[in-house]
Every structure is written in C-alpha cells, then in structure tokens.
C-alpha cells in the first residue's frame, strides 16, 4: 500500500527537521533541507511501503545535509564540526548529489555511502551493530568502511 503523503509528513517531518537543524544549524536552511528530503522520498512513495520510515528518512536527511555542507561549506551547530566538514568535503565527490545517490542505493541496490556510515557512528554515536542495521550491512562491512575512512582522514590530517 503506498504511503499517505499527509500522514507521512505529519508523522516524520518534525523529526527530519530536527535532524537537519542539528547538522546544518540554521533553521531556514534546515527547513529547506527537510523539504528536499520529503520531495525525494515522496517521489518514490509507491516504493516505500515496506521501508522503515524513521530509519530511511534519517539516512536521507543525513545525506541531504552532507550535500548542503559540501556545497555551501556551512558549519554544523554542534556535534563534531571539524569531523563533519572533513567527512562532507572529502568523501563522495561524485558528480551526482549524495542524496540522489542514497536513493539510488536504496532503490537500485547500490552500495552504501561511507560518509553516512561515518556520520552515524562518529557523530550520532551509533554502535557498529546499530549502523549495520541502519544501512543494511554486516558489522564487519561497516567496520571496514570506517577503518578505511579513518585511514583516509588520518592521511588528510597529516598532509602539509
């Protein structure tokens, strides 16, 4: 059964807005990002019936915000700003937006984004098991992604 847009929005929009506000800081920017999230999700409403809404929206919101941080170089309000900006700026430089890539992954069974895994674990303090459940990977897969990212970040930090 396709989701009902009104109910879906009324149930989850405040949560998504808080997520965007936490990552982006500015209320209006967060509100714009929240709308972007729902446009992307509701564009695929007929495919969402079996998805876990809060997990999906949280992950797409994270991707949308990362994309905005990459684009605008905005600094997050709290959490670990340096880490967020570093992750945003040094991962997934592909031409397509990270948000669209997230949906592509969701619907076309592509691999998960290392940046989101990093945010979920390092910024949101999810355990490896929780990240794995969130992104649909094995714990060992998540661990490998994070180890690779840490190596990359370490290399960036040590660059002159």
């Amino acid at each position, binding site marked *: 059964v396709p989701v009902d847009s009104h109910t879906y*929005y*009324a149930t989850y929009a405040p949560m998504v807005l808080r997520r965007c506000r*936490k990552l982006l800081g500015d209320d209006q920017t967060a509100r714009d990002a929240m709308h972007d999230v729902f446009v992307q999700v509701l564009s695929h409403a007929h495919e969402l019936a079996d998805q876990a809404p809060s997990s999906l929206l949280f992950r797409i919101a994270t991707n949308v915000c990362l994309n905005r941080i990459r684009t605008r170089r905005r600094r997050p309000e709290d959490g670990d700003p340096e880490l967020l900006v570093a992750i945003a700026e040094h991962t997934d430089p592909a031409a397509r937006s990270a948000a669209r890539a997230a949906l592509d992954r969701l619907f076309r069974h592509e691999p998960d984004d290392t940046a989101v895994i990093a945010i979920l674990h390092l910024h949101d303090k999810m355990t490896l098991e929780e990240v794995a459940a969130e992104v649909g990977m094995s714990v060992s897969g998540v661990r490998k992604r994070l180890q690779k990212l840490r190596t990359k970040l370490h290399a960036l930090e040590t660059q002159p």
Partner: protein
Amino acid sequence: MTALPDWLVERAALDEVPPASRDRIAGADPRALADQVAALRDDNAAELARHPAGPAVAQLEARIAAEAQRRAGQRRRRHLGWLGLATSVAAVLVVTRLGAERTVIDDPERGVVARGDGTRVKGAPRLVAFRQAGEQIEQLEPDTVVRAGDVIQLRYNAGGRGYGVIASLDGAGVVTLHFPLSEDAPPQATAVPPDTATLPHAYALDDAPRFERFFFITANDPVDVQQTLAALRAFARREDSATAALELPTGLHQRSLRLRKPDPTSTHHESP
C-alpha cells in the same frame, strides 16, 4: 545509566526502535526517556501548528509534479511524444465524465461558516474569512462589504473530508486558486489537514466590482485541480455567478462565502 543519543530518543518517540538498539533503550532511565519523548511530541505538535502538513504537502506535491513534468518533457523531446498523446486522451475522458455527471450539490448560501472556528467538526466543511483592520483582526460575515486593498486571510476545515480546493471568483469574472498553491498541482496535493487550518498567505483584494466569492470544494478523494478551475471559470461567465450554485461532479461538495464590494453609486459603506 547513560544518556541516549538524540536519534534513539526520536525512534522511541515514534515507536520505531530498531532491534539492535533495544538493549540501549532497556538500559535507559525510564523516567528521563519518558520526559524526552514527551518533549519531542510537544515539539512535533508545535511545529505542525506553526507549519501545518496540508500546505506543506501541497508544496511538496507541486515540486514533485513539476519535476515529473520536467522529466516527462525531456523524455518527450528525446523520444516519441507518446506521453502527450496519453495525457490528451486522459483529459478528454475526464472532461467527458465531468459533463456526464454534472450535479448540483450544496446550496452555496448555506455554506457560510459559523463562528467559534478552531475545533474539528465532522460533516460540515467550513470556510472563514478574516480581514485585518489596523491592529484588529475581524471575522467577516457573509455579504460583508470589503474594499480594494483589504487584506483577507482564510481559514478552513474540511469537516472530515480528506481533500479540498479553495478558489475565489470576483465580480470581474477572475478565478483565483488559493489551495493548493499551484494550478498544476496533482490531485494528491489537494490533501487537507484534519483540523482547522489557515492558508499560508493572506492577500489584498483588488478593485474588481460587485463581489468576491470564495469556494471551498471538498471530497473524500483527491480533487482534480485543473478540472475544478475549469468548472469555476465556466461558472464565472454566468450572469448569476454571484448567487448560483456551482455545478460539480458527483462526489464533490461545495461551500461558498460571498463578500460584497461597495456599490459605486452609494455614498456610504455599511454592510447590507
């Protein structure tokens, strides 16, 4: 006991705690968690009161429709143009159906809204107009005299029906759509909130003569915005458009609220 991260409290508030996190929830201080969940739910209610879902979803649907339309246009230009043909055929079918099922539903003059607006009432869609007069906000009764420049704000309640279109017709025969926001909006964009809501924008009346008449078309199913506007524009050409009932397809219901413009031959401005 350790504090739970924000995202996990959000999941708890939504009753969507993933299995991998249930131990963390079980290990949390139940009173603190209950307080956090209550605070989130209060914040949810406040956010939705400030920014109701109905207009927001209408905007989202309009964006989605515009994007779909843009993509369809690209496909049409690239390929065979079959989509345009299908749309035309569908439009002809809808118009044919509209003509075949014309029925007069509600007496528009019964459709004027009562006072005490603000609570959910099933069964009786309501449309209320307010006018800003200096620092005061005045609720407008039917046939109140309004003037060019008056700022009007509409509130509405679909009375338990899930969908609606709000548009106005003035004495110059001009039809203006107020909800949803775009004339290109798809039927799903006509979803209305279950409770009384305020349109996101007030607007100033122009100098159109005789009257300004607001229609609130409601239905249990999504409403075709374009067909509704077409019916209103046809209706606007009638001599009795200030008083007659709008003819609508079966399943659509109407409420109307008429405000009067001053008689240009009159020297005073009292309400009739």
